[in-house]
Structures are given as structure tokens and as C-alpha cells.
């Protein structure tokens, strides 16, 4: 900050050269205006109209009333939060344990980084395709593994009661590599001095993990928690490939974004979809704000 202020003073003499910086920023600012500012304002306007794309009628708050009183919408909200909650609850601690193990390994660190990151480089669409077979109730890989270990099996994606857990498994599998890489990068950034000092005090490996590693990782936990939720609230691709826009079976997989997509581009109810978009938008902002408060992460 101090440096940029110094530069600012020096530059102050050459006011005429300011304009050139706006040229540098032109592409970005053009993008902000055309593809951010205009769409969010237009979306707000549309949410007060009944619209099929060509004919528009002012309806005031009726779209919001319809969205907020729609059981289908609240079901989509529930599904989105349910899948996100368990994805994050499982993936972050699991990823932390795996990353801690990899970090203390004497050989093979790179091998495991690559191995665990492979699912994450796969597109979520292809991953969902593969998982629709992995989770097949009769011939799938997972139920085969479970039954050969003597564990109970379930119908996964074909039963509304368990379908969300199928998606949670897919989501954890796909996201875990990212979580591990982020943890590893931050684990390696902890100063070795802290560990050396603890060793002199006679701390065991587990004690070091508990009293040095974990406290140093709170920022990383917060980062993953927040990015995880931002991604989870926008969930669409995986549930779309598995259950279509309606989130079959029996809407058990329809997320908020899928609801918007179904109303907007299945039914061409742009007004309703825009109102739902704004509700989603407010939910994301409010929830992210709460998360930031709760985790005390500074951006």
C-alpha cells in the first residue's frame, strides 16, 4: 500500500497520462458493464414482469410470491443445501487427514498428489456419467465392492430416498483432490521452526499435528468452507447429467439452479425464473456473508 501511494504522488504530475490506464482496463470494464451490470439490472427488471421472451406484462411482486410459495422451489433449496452440507462435511476433514498423511511422507508425495487430483481434472459431466454406472444398484462397482465386503447396499440414484447420497459421493470424490492440494500447499507453508521448537520440547508427531498444524490451518479451513459453499449453491452440472432439469427421481435431485433452468428454458417463464434467480442470489450473498462472519476470513 505504501508503495502505491508513493507512486501515486510521483505520478500526480502527469495527469494527462491517466487516460491510457483506462485503455488497459477497457476489456475488463467492457466485460463488467455488458456481462455483469446490465444482466443483473435487466434480471431485476424482468423479475417484475410476466415474460416469455417476447411479450411482457407488469405483474409487480407476483413472481416472487409464486416462487416463495412454491413447494418445488423450497424442495430445490432443501436439496441444494442438503447435498452441499454433506459434501463439505465429509470432504474437508477427509481431505485434511489425507493431506496431512501425504505431507509427512518421506517418499511418494508427488505420486499421491497426482493420484488424488485425477478426479478433479475430469470434467464433472464425464464424472457424473461414470458415476451413474458406478452407482448402478445391480451392476454398479460400488454395490459390488460393498457386498463383497459384507456391507449393506442401497439403490443409490434410482431411489428418491438415497439419490442425494449418490450425488454426495460423486461430489466428494470429485472435490477431494482440490481440497487435498489446497491443504498441502498451506501445510508446506508452515514454518519448520515451529515444529523444531516443539520437538525440542519433546512433542510427539500427533501432538505436533494437534497443536501446531491444526491452528495454522484455520484460514485454509475457512477458505475451503466458503469456496465449497459458493460452488455447492451453484450446483447444476452433475445433477443435470444424472437426473435432468427436473432432478429425477421424483425431483429429489433438483437444485436451485436446475429449478431456474427448468422454468426459464423448459417453460420459457422468464419472469418466474428471474425472480427465482434473485432469491437464489440473495441466498448466496447472505449465506456467504454469514460464512465470512463465522469463519472470520478476511478477503
Amino acid at each position, binding site marked *: 500500500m505504501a508503495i502505491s501511494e508513493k*507512486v501515486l504522488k510521483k505520478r500526480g504530475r502527469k495527469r494527462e497520462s491517466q487516460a491510457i490506464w483506462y485503455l*488497459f482496463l477497457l476489456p475488463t470494464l467492457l466485460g463488467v458493464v455488458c456481462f455483469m451490470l446490465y444482466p443483473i439490472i435487466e434480471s431485476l427488471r424482468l423479475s417484475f414482469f410476466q415474460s416469455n421472451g417476447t411479450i411482457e406484462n407488469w405483474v409487480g411482486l407476483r413472481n416472487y410470491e409464486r416462487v416463495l410459495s412454491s413447494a418445488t422451489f423450497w424442495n430445490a433449496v432443501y436439496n441444494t443445501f442438503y447435498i452441499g452440507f454433506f459434501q463439505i462435511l465429509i470432504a474437508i476433514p477427509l481431505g485434511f487427514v489425507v493431506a496431512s*498423511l501425504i505431507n509427512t511422507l518421506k517418499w511418494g508425495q508427488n505420486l499421491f498428489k497426482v493420484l488424488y487430483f485425477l478426479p478433479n481434472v475430469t470434467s464433472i459431466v464425464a464424472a457424473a456419467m461414470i458415476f451413474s454406472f458406478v452407482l448402478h444398484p445391480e451392476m454398479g462397482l460400488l454395490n459390488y465392492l460393498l457386498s463383497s465386503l459384507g456391507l449393506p447396499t442401497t439403490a443409490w440414484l434410482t431411489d428418491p430416498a438415497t439419490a442425494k447420497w449418490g450425488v454426495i459421493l460423486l461430489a466428494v470424490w470429485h472435490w477431494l483432490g482440490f481440497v487435498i492440494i489446497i491443504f498441502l500447499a498451506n501445510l508446506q507453508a508452515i514454518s519448520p521452526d515451529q515444529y523444531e521448537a516443539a520437538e525440542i520440547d519433546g512433542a510427539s508427531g500427533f501432538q505436533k499435528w494437534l497443536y501446531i498444524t491444526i491452528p495454522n490451518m484455520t484460514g485454509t479451513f475457512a477458505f475451503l468452507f466458503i469456496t465449497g459453499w459458493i460452488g455447492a449453491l451453484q450446483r447444476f452440472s452433475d445433477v443435470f447429467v444424472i437426473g435432468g432439469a427436473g432432478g429425477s427421481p421424483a425431483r429429489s435431485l433438483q437444485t436451485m439452479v436446475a429449478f431456474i433452468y427448468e422454468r426459464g428454458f423448459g417453460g420459457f417463464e422468464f419472469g418466474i425464473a428471474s425472480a427465482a434467480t434473485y432469491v437464489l442470489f440473495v441466498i448466496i450473498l447472505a449465506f456467504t456473508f454469514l460464512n465470512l462472519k463465522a469463519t472470520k476470513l478476511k478477503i
Partner: protein
Amino acid sequence: MNTATYKQRILVANIIKFVVLLLFGILMIAPFIWMVSVSFDRMANVQMPFPPKLIPENVSLFNYHIVFENGQILRAYLNSTIVTVSSVVISVSAALMGGYAFSKGTFAGKKILFVAVLATMMIPMEARLIPMYQMFNKVGLLNSFWPLILPSLLYAFGVFLSKQFFDQLPDSLREAAQIDGAGEFKIFFQIFFFLAGPITATLIILSFMSHWNELIWPLVVLTRDTLQTIPLFLASFSLENGTRLAGMTMALAAMSVLPIIIAFLFLQRYIIQSIALSGLKGE
């Protein structure tokens, strides 16, 4: 404490950790191994092989044959490549220029503009879907690649990362060039752009991964089969066939996954570094 036994204990601990990680790692990539196995199974479209086998009974290229037959996947590859490469070039150039201006520039409204650009990261694509669709519909650009390419002008996270990068480069570089009478564009393109190699690589990787995998926006603006990108092609195949044609689906999945995995194996150091950079706490 006896040093030999201490070393032995470390060794044993390492072996145990290694084995645990390896077993869990194999479990993680088991779906890929199974995908490849089923894709080579001649009978998998009729009857999915059960119990799962590593090497199928009737090994054949049949499924790949069908997948390639109508050329759709190759066209999808071509489409995805056109869209992704154009988007990456545009987004990374715009982000580098923007980041440079926010780092080294002095102009009115610098701080507020930077905050505004960062704030756009909070607004997902999904929240702009309908107005963006209508906008491109009005100008008659639906069913073209423009709606996929043009919005990459704004790459807020890239602007942020490159600003941080340029912040680390000394201002003395600029001052020396200014004394020689070089203009701002000349300074940027002849000095800073060449120093920005590492951050450029990171931005290319991150931008490539997000554009290559995008589904919902192409789904909305592309309705013509010949324009489908890879994710769109896979999703429509999957929705049409469900879990009926195991062999073909797996061959298709393999065709989309394996090139990316191979590219990843070659570039893994850079990719992993880039991902890690996106999640490292700033100073």
C-alpha cells in the same frame, strides 16, 4: 533412545502411511479403471459385465468404433477447442492488462474500480443466464460461439491474481524505461509481459479448466447439434440413453477424460501449483 530403532519406527510409520494412501488412492481411481475396462467390453451394451472384471471377456474396440463412427465426438472436440482457446486468449490478455493497470497505474477511481471488479466474482453465471440469453438472442448470435467467447473479457479472479503478481515487480523497471521515453503500452508489452510468464501460465491453466468444462451456458445458447461442445455432447448423450448403453457411454467418457488426464500428467507440476496458488493465503 536408540537411534536405530527410532529410524526403524519412522520407516515403519512411513510404510503404513504409504500403504493406506495407496489403497485409498486406488479406490479413488477405481472408477476410471472400470470405465476403461467396460469401454473395451464387446457385450457391455447388452449386458453390463458383472461381477466387475479388470480385463473384459470379449476385448474389442467395438464401442470406440461406434463412438467415432458418426464423427460427432471429433466435431465436439473441435468446437470445444475453438471456444476454449479463444476464451483463454481473451480472458488471460484482458486479465493481465487489467491487473497491470491496477498494480502500476495511477488514475481516478482506481480503488473503487478494483473493488467493483472483485465484487463480480460473487455473481455466478447462473444469476445472469436469462438476460444474457435475451441479449444474445436480440443481436442474433444464439447458436454461434460468440456468446461463449465474448463474456470471457471479464476474468475477475485473473485480474486479481495478476495484480498481485505485478505488485511484486519493482517500479524501477518502469522508471528506467520511462527515462528512455517508452510509452505505457510499450513498457507493458516489452518488459512486464515477458516477466509475467509464471502468472500467465497459471491463468491459462485455470481459465482453460473452467471454460473446457462449462455446461449450463453452452446448454442455453447452443441448440444445434453440430455446435455442441464436449460437455454438452456428453450430457445430451447421457440424458438420452441413461444407463442403457454401458459400453458406449464408457467409451465416450474415456474419450473425453483420457486426453485431459494425459495432458494433466505432463503438466501436473504446473497445474497443481496453479491450483495451490488460487488457494494460498495472501501475505
